[in-house]
């Protein structure tokens, strides 16, 4: 299949970027990233600068790949990361527009590569249970209701790719933050620090410059792990309870 690609090219954070158009011949069995590999090989053979894009595991779990394809983070398929998207989702002759994640808190490094370290800092602000190695009691000491364990798991599947922020017209990181707050807060072992955790994670999220949630819901639609905005509601109430119910 013959495709036309409009790809965002930007030398570094300081320069202005622009779209450049490329033609590429792909096979429908290729993954989207393999199609870009083919294009890059061509560019290299012409001694041109290959397109920088991030990727690693290529099986939808590491959360590294991050392309906005025709205006949608991770492309048109629901519940799919960019690396799992295959060219059979496109037609011969299609023009595909590829852009980087857009958000002030995710500055562009080069072309389609952005800096998502803000996510790490949100986790560092409280996305953990304070237990030192060796302090743990027996794994079966605290039974966890199965439904609760499932809910916590659903939130814990977040791969930290940032599609929620990229999809959000407000550049908000609520789904990411809420997923971690929910995952840990739902489990009995995480309840102890839940109040403190919720407050410090939300505060850090605000500090990073993410936008304010207006319940648009695009994050939930584009999340490759289909994490529900129910988690955002849970974090909202936890946050209010934390502010009004604590001594600080």
């Amino acid at each position: 299949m013959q495709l036309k690609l409009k790809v965002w090219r930007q030398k570094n954070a300081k320069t202005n970027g622009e779209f450049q158009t490329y033609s590429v011949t792909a096979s429908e069995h290729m993954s989207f990233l393999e199609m870009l590999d083919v294009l890059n090989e061509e560019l290299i053979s012409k001694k041109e600068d290959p397109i920088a894009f991030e990727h690693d595991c290529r099986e939808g779990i590491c959360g590294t790949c991050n392309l906005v394809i025709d205006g949608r983070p991770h492309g048109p398929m629901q519940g799919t990361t960019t690396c799992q998207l295959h060219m059979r989702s496109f037609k011969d002759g299609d023009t595909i527009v590829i852009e980087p994640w857009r958000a002030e808190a995710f500055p562009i490094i080069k072309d389609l590569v952005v800096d998502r370290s803000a996510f790490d800092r949100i986790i560092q602000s409280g996305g953990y249970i304070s237990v030192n190695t060796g302090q743990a009691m027996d794994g079966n000491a605290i039974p966890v209701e199965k439904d609760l364990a499932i809910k916590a798991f659903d939130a814990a599947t977040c791969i930290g790719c940032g599609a929620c922020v990229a999809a959000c017209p407000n550049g908000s990181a609520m789904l990411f933050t809420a997923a971690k707050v929910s995952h840990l807060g739902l489990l009995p072992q995480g309840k102890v620090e839940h109040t403190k955790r919720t407050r410090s994670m939300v505060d850090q999220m605000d500090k990073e410059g993410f936008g304010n949630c207006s319940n648009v819901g695009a994050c939930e639609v584009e999340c490759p792990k289909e994490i529900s905005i129910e988690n955002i509601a849970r974090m909202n109430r936890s946050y209010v309870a934390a502010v009004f119910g604590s001594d600080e």
Partner: protein
Amino acid sequence: MQWILNFLTSSIGKKFVMSFTGLFLISFLIIHLIGNLQLLYSDGGEAFNKYAYFMTSNPLIKTVSIGLYTGILLHAFLGLAIYFKNKKSKGKKYAVSTSANASFAAKQMALLGTLILAFILIHMGDFWFKMKFTDQIIPVDYDGMQVKDLYAQVSTTFSKPFFVGIYILGMIALAFHLWHGFQSAFQTLGLNHKKYTPIIQGLGKIFSILVPAAFALIPILMYLNR
């Protein structure tokens, strides 16, 4: 007291204020609609005028109305502040815009809200301002009770197709605003539940169609019956 300020300036705190004021304004819409429906009585406007008098003279209502104005202003200006903050947080927009992941209403709350604010200004300028601060509205006498004939003013306004059009457009904007805003207010308050949220969403959709439609019906009917 620093904590209150911290809360109110936090992302979630701001949204809480939006949610509370929004729900308050939603409840006002119901009261307002019930009053307005009296315009449709064929009693030459007596019921409506008495209602209007009551609303502007009863001390309790007057106190509540201060809350209402505050609510509108808070909702509007905080909403705009959030809009500008979010615009900055988003940064550059995508070259391709998509409707695949969110509704028009959800994405355009600020635009819709601004339209509604403009509508409110026109609406209040035409009725509330004239009634309270000018003598343009001539009083009528109901069994010795002197009340301003707001009904006449309303009838005049709704005899002009231009104003009827503005009211219809205002209500369309309101409908879209409520379409997202109603259920969004509950989500912000953390009221999301597998069983109840679908009910809230259903109610919200019914509300966001029925209430603006009923409001819009009044100028239309009055125009047709002029």
